């Protein structure tokens, strides 16, 4: 049995747990705890402190694991551990909270430093009225035009599937590039 993994990362409350939950065939093994900091408690009551864990069985020989990183910076020691051996990673960004864009950018840089694997950025909560435009987010996050910035609603399986597929297409494209 072969296993591969993808990492879903992003700032606190970006929607990582919900994202994995939408496509995982098992109940997401989540290590959520009550939020202790006042500012964070105002956003949500529980957060992931170690990791989320979802699974998609491809066939009897291959399983894909989705790991969600803890969003709070004080748990960033977990990031390097989770990034080891990943096929690629997804950076989730809450489109309605520009105050988290800088942190998202910083997390993206950190993961790129851990492993130069392909990645995509998912602009979550694009169904909300106060969500930023994708192109505005691209500039705010200082993403190169070649980086895939994809609209997403973490609770909507279709958009989550699209994000995963786009990441896989990027991985495939990199392999094709490596052949040349």
């Amino acid at each position, binding site marked *: 049995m072969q296993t591969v993994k993808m990492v879903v990362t992003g700032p606190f409350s970006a929607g990582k747990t919900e994202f994995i939950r939408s496509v995982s065939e098992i109940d997401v093994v989540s290590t959520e705890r009550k939020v202790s900091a006042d500012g964070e408690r105002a956003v949500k009551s529980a957060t992931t402190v170690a990791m989320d864990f979802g699974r998609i069985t491809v066939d009897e020989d291959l399983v894909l694991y989705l790991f969600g990183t803890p969003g709070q910076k004080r748990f960033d020691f977990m990031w390097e551990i989770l990034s080891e051996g990943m096929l690629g990673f997804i950076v989730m960004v809450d489109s309605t909270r520009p105050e988290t864009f800088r942190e998202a950018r910083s997390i993206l840089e950190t993961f790129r430093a851990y492993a130069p694997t392909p990645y995509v950025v998912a602009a979550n909560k694009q169904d909300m*009225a106060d969500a930023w435009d994708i192109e*505005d987010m691209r500039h*705010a996050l200082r993403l190169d035009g070649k980086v895939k910035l994809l609209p997403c609603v973490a609770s909507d399986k279709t958009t989550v599937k699209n994000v*995963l597929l786009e990441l896989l297409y990027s*991985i495939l494209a990199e392999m094709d590039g490596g052949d040349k």
Partner: protein
Amino acid sequence: MALRGNLRDFTVTQLLNLINLAHKSGTLVIEGPTEAAKVSFRDGKLAYAQIGQEDNRLASVLHRSNKLTTGQLRAIQTRAVQVGDKELGLLLINAGYMSQDDILNSLQSYFTDVVRRLFTWVEGFFRFENDMTPPEDRITVRLDLENLIIEGARQLREWEQLQDEIPSLDMALKFIERPGTSMQKMNLSVEEWRVVSYINPRNTIQQIASASKMSDLEIRRIVYGLLQAGLVEVVRPEGAAQAIERARPQVTVQNREEQKSLVNRLITRIRSI
């Protein structure tokens, strides 16, 4: 959709950078603790600015830049109340008092000064109104934002913020290839030119700082300005790739064809969910 937020999370410099890169047209409305400001843009260039209740009509602007005496200003204010700025400008040019360049330079200088004052605002809310344009009778300008962005970044003193923006000095810098951007047009300081001269994907930011005898804070300030102006990007230093590659635990398959087959199986599976 919404381009709105809080200045505590998104600085004026970052907003200008976004407007510049996205070539936005419209008006940025900033509501500070004591007054509000409106700054208009056309195709990503500064067009017009107003702050609080300050008189920004042409006569006042020309008086501030010493192009009109106090007596001339009073005369215009009392006798030409109904005359719009565009009309007044034409009258002054036709009467030989000043040239079109004098008027445009005075307005550019005033609007730039308004934006400079906004750099010190750290509290307040902003929103970008796509449909809001300057009043019809006012003269607008077309001013590139790059120099203002660099200037705004120079004023950024928050060390923590700079650390967030540039978390590692072990990365290198590379010039961004953007058509239409010319280094010659930029007003770079001596220190900025010194850093620019060392930019090369082989040199880490730390090495540039050492070579130009700058502290971590100084180099971060300059790199931040260059990043915000869209002149450079942070890249992994050349030569580091091999070490990173070694540390990278790859997919545990034998060869590239097997890797591709594995990814294709994943794609097929996810499509079927």
